[in-house]
């Protein structure tokens, strides 16, 4: 069971937000308690009764002392909350980047995620892999956020608060996940028709697993004789206009990089599991899985579809 609960942090920024939120919740909770008790008391105590007859109550117009009291106390509460908040803003936003940090560039697309690891020469999509960050040997991940089209927002609640991906603007955020596992999230800023299925998966790997993953991703696609027919279909239709398979002529940038498609657990930005049946359905009629996605239906024959699915399955 993977949660997206904001109160289950596994990384420093998410943890400091929870710490701040507990203070804020306590203060606002106390205010709520005091005011609602006063309100309930007033409703019960001062309700009109039959015995009142028609007499009007004492006409009171105000009181400077009382007004001052309920001005100054809230001002003090604001000062306390603000100083606590400003510390957390500074701690998260202005955190220095250690030399050990992993740098990933995230590019938001309608309606999928492009992940580029410039120092490692890796390009992948939708499923982000980062190393676990042991507090004694921190290895945080610093993201550079950009958009290819409309606004998006990167949000894995257990790792950090969200930051938008805005065209013509470069944003940054970071997290240092302290345990391995799969963490879920999804695009939080409305970006168009399929905003709802622009899902995110972040795999936090042990150092060994992460290194192995990096090595595998750095390879170009390995040609597979069995899938030759499918490769021909791929390279002779418009697929290559949008998709890249490194080591082949396909070098499109509009859609996800497919070089290691089979290393991913899902397709269509998490909208469906990466199974042969789903792949075939996705190639035949993308709207069946994600209506409004920008992947076109290529009107292929059944034989070509089967061949193409075999080719996809060879991209390990």
């Amino acid at each position, binding site marked *: *069971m993977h*949660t*997206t*609960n904001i*109160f289950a942090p596994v990384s420093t920024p998410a943890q400091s*937000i929870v710490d*701040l*939120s507990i203070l*804020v919740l306590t203060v*606002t909770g106390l205010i709520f308690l005091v*005011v*609602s008790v*006063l*309100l309930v008391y*007033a409703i019960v105590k*001062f*309700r*009109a009764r039959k015995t*009142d007859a028609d007499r*009007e*109550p004492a*006409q*009171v*117009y*105000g*009181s400077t002392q009382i*007004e001052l009291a*309920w*001005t100054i106390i*809230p001002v003090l509460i*604001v000062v306390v*909350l*603000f100083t*606590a908040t*400003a510390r*957390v*803003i*500074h701690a*998260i*936003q202005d955190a220095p980047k250690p030399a050990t940090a992993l740098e990933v560039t995230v590019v938001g697309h309608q309606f999928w995620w492009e992940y580029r690891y410039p120092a490692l020469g890796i390009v992948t999509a939708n499923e982000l892999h980062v190393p676990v960050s042991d507090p004694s040997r921190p290895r945080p991940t610093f993201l550079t956020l950009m958009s290819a*089209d*409309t*606004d998006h*927002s990167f*949000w894995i*609640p257990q790792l950090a608060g*969200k*930051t938008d991906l*805005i065209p*013509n603007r470069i944003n940054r955020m970071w997290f240092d996940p302290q345990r391995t596992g799969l963490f879920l*999230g*999804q695009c939080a*800023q*409305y*970006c*168009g028709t399929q*905003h*709802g299925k622009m899902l995110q998966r972040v795999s936090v790997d042990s150092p060994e697993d992460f290194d192995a993953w990096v090595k595998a991703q750095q390879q170009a696609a390995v040609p597979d004789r069995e899938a030759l027919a499918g490769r021909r279909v791929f390279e002779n239709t418009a697929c290559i206009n949008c998709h890249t398979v490194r080591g082949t002529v396909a070098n499109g940038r509009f859609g996800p990089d497919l070089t290691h498609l089979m290393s991913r657990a899902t397709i269509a930005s998490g909208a469906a599991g990466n199974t042969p049946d789903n792949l075939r359905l996705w190639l035949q009629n993308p709207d069946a899985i994600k*209506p*409004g996605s920008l992947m076109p239906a290529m009107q292929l024959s059944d034989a070509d579809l089967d061949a193409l699915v075999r080719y996809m399955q060879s991209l390990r």
Partner: protein
Amino acid sequence: MASNVMAVDRMRIQEPTWGETLHEWVTTVDHKRIGILYIALALFFLVVGGVEALIIRIQLMSAHNDFVSPQVFNRMFTMHGTTMIFFVAMPILFGFGNYLVPLMIGARDMAFPRLNAFSFWLAAISGLVLYFSFLGGSGLYAAGTAPDVGWWAYAPLTARAFSPGSSADYWTIAVLVSGFGSIGTAINLIATILSMRCQGMTLGRMPLLAWLYLTMAAMVLIAVTPLSAAQIMLLIDRYLGGHFFDTQAGGSATLWMHFFWIFGHPEVYILVIPCFAFMSEIIPVFSRKPIFGYPVMVAATVCIAFVSMSVWAHHMFTIGMSSYANSFFTITTMAVGVPTGIKIFNWLGTMWGGRIQFKTPMLFAVAFLFQFLIAGLTGIMMAASPFDWQLSLSYFVVAHFHYVIVGGILFAIFAAFYYWYPKATGRMLSERLGKIHFWLFVIGFHLTFDLMHVPGLLGMPRRIYTYEPGRGWETLNLLVSVGAVIQAVAVLVFVLNLILSYWKGARAGKDPWDAWTLEWSISSPPPAYNFAAVPAVASRRPLWDLKHPEDPDSRYE
């Protein structure tokens, strides 16, 4: 006074025909009729926007539901938001303002009656333009579609690359034209309040409602102008090759955000300040005491108006502003809570020591106090910008602002309906139906919007047309939808009450609530000229002075 009314009645030889009545209403420049037209327009769109909300809620009842397509869902939340803000909340509050302000300051009409009618018809036509998009939205080459850019219409989603056809233009033009109408009415309210007060009514003796409408109208002038400018810039982008917001040609997406929210946040206060005005009239009358701390209430209102002009970027905590900008908008946003808190305490102070009568208007007023308190406190949570990095754009925000707009603003509007309907129609609304309406709405409201906070905390973003199972969102969303249905039933009871009571309600008489402001000194409904003799006042509660000559307010003020 009464004899004048009779004289007018006798002059009518025949009852007017339907055609004549319609003509009278369409061509009217009477502030009371324009007020009622505004309110009728808003009630119509309230039902339309409510149906859109129900479609949204049916779609979200279960995970992977396919009641509507993503395209339809996106149009529904865009139209729901745009409708409720621009064509329900704004016109209904302008309607009450139009109706009440001249009556409460002892004037015979608004300062510019024709501008008043013009403003109303702009509002009505812009609403029709928005909904005409269902027929004409995509232009000639496809069936019509409503805009699907969300009610903030963030750039560059509105650029022609992402919104081809003309559906986004219907949104732009509707908002632009309704903005002109709002500016017209705001000018009118300011001129009326500043220059049409009756003899003796100094600024310090105005009913709080007039003060609050004055503040609200000033805010409209400041906030709606940049919104209108942004719409024109967007049209230039779309049709004249401008690049203000066109990111593909070097424009700025964040520029639009600033333009929109410098309108969008003051707008919240533009909507809520008239509701504070209703509270400040209703709570004293049903507590049988004058408002506690009148000068402080005025000062707090003006303070809110100023501070709320400097909080807009708290809608933008996730766009990657610097830590200094985030800190600035954190403190201004928290600071606005202080004058708002003062207002809540002053209403409590008004009730304290009173003899509170729980008629329907007061029931809604007490619910307003309780719910607005909660809405304010969740607002403080989101003012803490790091906390907002988690809460923003999630269902927590959706729950928060519905708590403000439904739990606060709509409850206050219902209170105002029950309170002033007798004045406008001469008939009381049914207390029995009113209590059914109240309790159904309270139950539905809390079921929907209390629970709606939780999926946000569990990571559910807003504006998604469907969601994945297994994240703990399903049951909550189902219950939220059930609550929406209960609210819809409650609104039906309310509409039924409005219609039935018009024919069957008990006669109201001049002053059914034993109230203290000038509108209760004349017949219900008031004659076209309001006051046969323009009144003179000596205190904030002229009718109290009349009813208690032995102990008039004028002695203490």
